[in-house]
């Protein structure tokens, strides 16, 4: 091979490698990214049972039920609709009624959202950003509450 051919083959191999990596990246973005929804969004969006999503909103007042063991049931609401959630594990320290949370998991066949992680903001001054934005969009955000 001449020097030019050699260089060309190296460049082609490099591009093929980058192309494969890029393809994999976009496939993974389509398959593995989880979308964020608030309860009212679920009426319009089609979310299959078993599909991983993140569900955010406020913990509805009076819905926290601690059953036997470490499983907790509660409802997440955006003041328009609410969704039942169950979670087994340790809730974050800032988890309480009317506090903004983001839960991640999937709907079970019975329509209850089974979360495998629950996030509440560590600093009590803030809501999770997605939840605050969503509540603002729905017109139920009170600025005074945020700071």
């Amino acid at each position, binding site marked *: 091979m001449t020097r030019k051919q050699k260089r060309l083959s190296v460049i082609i191999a490099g591009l093929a490698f980058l192309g494969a990596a890029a393809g994999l990246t976009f496939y*993974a973005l389509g398959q593995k*990214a989880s979308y964020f929804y608030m309860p009212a969004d679920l009426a319009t969006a089609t979310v299959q049972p078993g599909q991983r999503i993140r569900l955010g909103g406020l913990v509805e007042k009076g819905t926290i039920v601690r059953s036997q063991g*470490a499983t907790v049931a509660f409802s997440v609401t955006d003041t328009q609709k609410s969704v039942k959630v169950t979670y087994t*594990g*340790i809730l974050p*320290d800032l988890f309480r009624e009317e506090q903004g949370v983001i839960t991640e998991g999937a709907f079970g066949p019975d329509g209850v959202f089974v979360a495998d992680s629950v996030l509440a903001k560590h*600093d009590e001054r803030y809501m999770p950003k997605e939840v605050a934005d969503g509540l603002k969009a729905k017109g139920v955000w009170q600025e005074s509450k945020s700071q």
Partner: protein
Amino acid sequence: MVETGHFALVLAFALSLVQMLLPLVGARSGNRRLMAVGGPVAVTGFALTALSFAALAGAYAGSDFSVANVWENSHSLQPMIYKITGTWGNHEGSMLLWVLILTFFGALVAVFGSNLPETLKANVLAVQGTIGAAFFLFILTTSNPFIRLNPAPIEGRDLNPVLQDLGLAIHPPLLYLGYVGFSICFSFSVAALIEGRIDASWARWVRPWTLVAWMFLTGGIAMGSYWAYYELGWGGFWFWDPVENASFMPWLAGTALLHSAIVMEKRSALKIWTLLLAILTFSLSLLGTFLVRSGVLTSVHAFATDPARGVFILCILTLFIGGSLALFALRASRLTAGGLFHPISREGALVLNNLFLTTATATVLVGTLYPLVLEATTGGKISVGAPFFDLTFGPLMLPLLAIVPFGPLLAWKRGDILAASQRLMAAFALAIAAMLVAGLFIDGGSVFAALGVGLAVWLVAGALTDLAVKSGVGSVTPAVMLRRFAGLPRSVFGTALAHLGLGLTLLGIVGTLSFGTEKILTMRAGETVDLSGHTLRFEGLFPRKGPNFTEDRGRFLLISNGNADGEITSAKRFYPARQTVTTESGIRTLGLSQLYLSLGDEGKDGSVVVRLWWKPLVTLIWGGGLVMMGGAAMSLLDRRLRVGAPARRRKPAAAAASASPT
């Protein structure tokens, strides 16, 4: 005192403007007196920034709540160590630490750069001054830590309790030393582009700086990971959180730079690529600063959100990344391409390393920025987490890790892959054996576990093989072998240690993920629980009062072979100043593994939710990081870097002449 600090900061900004302009003009017009201004100005600028930082730290130590920043982030009852570390536990203070380290590195170049060609030194200091000027202006206009309150409040609002930890004393300074350390490599690259040539001293200078920055960044990331592990109470060591990725991207690019700089120094090949990589690495550091400090991400690191700050940092980002890349596009063709090599050679292996590492950096970049771009363009909100990175980053790392042991065994220019393979036979056999044991004989063994353990052992054994081969094991007498071993260049040890540390970290990750066990249950006082052969008895919750918090400590007795073997305590802490609850996890290290437990909510019947983990080999994750740091330190001690530098001073004219473009 606080006003002194403020004044010093303004002076430092003014000096950074001088440092930005005069040496640059001097270098262009050949005016030696203008060029000579850079050094003293850089040192004075550092002294003023240090004074400014000390003034703020003093206000924190003395709980001077008339300073708004102190009032917002400190409390008179905090222990002294958290009062002081609170200085950088907030946006304004951490930016001040950022510029302090930036000017520190600039001063180091000024002091130790006497053997640099005059114009190169002047240009490097000018670029460093430009970065400083931008960030000083940012602090003074949008993030001033010295603003007073009148009337002064009596009590402060306390530091975020999550940050009231020794981790805050170690993690940010180490991370910034790494992040900002790459600014030197950036400045050298831009200076080389301004001059339109890369001379011999360039590569010799950039490599040690890369090593220093990489060493600190490694430590910063490892320390941050361990801090999150024990402080958040989730038992995870890496969350693929955008903030973590922000520090991981410069690390990946910096690792690539470290390797390409070797090729450049030894063989003067890959010059243009190394230069580009140095620019990209610091650009990723700036991007990380933007992601963390602008408030586009919500996390414990985003102390406050202020749109003006985000826009300002975005401007800095655009200016430096855009400017340096434009300069690169204009000038790179002037630089001479370097030596030739066969694909199978040390250079070839290092190029392959760079290909994998930069592609991996790109996948992390896409995964980190895509959600932000999507939200800005369509308003859709997605999160990209572990499943994405497992599918993209993982497949890139596996082949890279598999070829690591070959690299150091290949010769420069043209290597012999068969000979290298023969030498690695023992390591390969060991890796296969480990793979079989992990896959077949240990509970929880899976294909992933077997592959991971095999790779980790392969890396460790490969690193040791390199040392053994280079000291002539098997071909010379033991006495000669020992002498050779002791006489090996420090950089050979550095390489072996760094690769060995990588293997240890991998072993820790695979061990924890594959063979760890976890239990969540409710416990009453007196109950016991078994976890992977360990028995724990819950003794109950005991209230206790700390300096600025109250806590309920859950005490657990570890029982080994029927005998009490010490206590593990996990606590729920309440900080009244911020009305915040935090969980302090309980950790007991047993050999290289850890028992980890964290308390949940207390039930009405006096029972408590407890989450327990058995994390085998988990300490190796961070231990491996320390070994990697040790490798970098060892490389820095290499004779070539210590003794070589002054030796060049005798013939600067000759070096400059030989390096000029032909």
